C-alpha cells in the first residue's frame, strides 16, 4: 500500500477538517430527514481521521494538544455547570408556578446535563481513589 506522506501540520488540518465535515454532515442530513446518509458520511469522516494519522512519520498530536483538550473540557464543564445551576432551577420554579411547561427537547437537555455531571462525578471519585 502506498502512503501519501504529509507534514504533521497537514495531518492536523486534514484531521480537523474531517471531524468538522463529519459532524456537519451528520447534523445536516439528519435535519433534512436523511439520517442514514448522515451516519454514513460521519462514519466515512471518522475513517478519514484514522487514515490521516497514518499519513505522517512524525507525531501530529502531542502533550500540548492533550493539555489544550483538558483545559477546553474543563471550561466546557464550567460553562455547563454555571448555566445549569441558574437555568434549570429557574425553569423548575417557573414550571411550579405554571409559567413554563417542560417540552421533550428541554427535558432532554436537562437529562443530558444531569448525566454529564453524574459521569463527571463518577470519574472524580474513581480517579481520586487512584491518586
Amino acid at each position, binding site marked *: 500500500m502506498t502512503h501519501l506522506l504529509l507534514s*504533521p*501540520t497537514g495531518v*492536523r488540518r486534514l484531521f480537523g477538517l474531517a471531524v468538522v465535515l463529519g459532524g456537519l454532515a451528520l447534523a445536516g442530513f439528519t435535519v433534512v430527514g436523511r439520517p442514514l446518509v448522515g451516519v454514513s458520511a460521519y462514519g466515512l469522516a471518522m475513517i478519514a481521521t484514522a487514515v490521516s494519522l497514518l499519513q505522517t512519520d*512524525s*507525531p*501530529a*498530536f*502531542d*502533550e*500540548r*494538544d492533550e*493539555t489544550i483538550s483538558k483545559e477546553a473540557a474543563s471550561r466546557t464543564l464550567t460553562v455547563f455547570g454555571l448555566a445549569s445551576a441558574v437555568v434549570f432551577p429557574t425553569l423548575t420554579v417557573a414550571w411550579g408556578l405554571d409559567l413554563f411547561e417542560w417540552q421533550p427537547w428541554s427535558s432532554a437537555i436537562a437529562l443530558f446535563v444531569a448525566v454529564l455531571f453524574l459521569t463527571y462525578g463518577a470519574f472524580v471519585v474513581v480517579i481520586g481513589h487512584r491518586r
Partner: protein
Amino acid sequence: MSTVENSLKELREQHSLTQRALADQLEVTRQTINAIERNRYDPSAELIFKLAHFFECPVEDIFHPDTGLETSISEVE
C-alpha cells in the same frame, strides 16, 4: 502564559536546528516547540528532561523561573 522562562530558542539556534527538526528529535509537534519558545506553554516534566538530555545540559540551563516564581521559591526555602 508560562511561569517559567526559557532559553530554548537560543539553544536550538546554537545547534543550527529548525523547530521542525528539534520537534522530530523529541517526538513532539513543531507547534509545541514554538509555544515553549514563546513562553506560552509549560512542557511536561518528561519533555523538560528530554530537552536537557538532548542538549546535554542541566535543566536549569534551559528553564529559568520568572521573578515572581523565584520569590515564592525563596520564601519556601
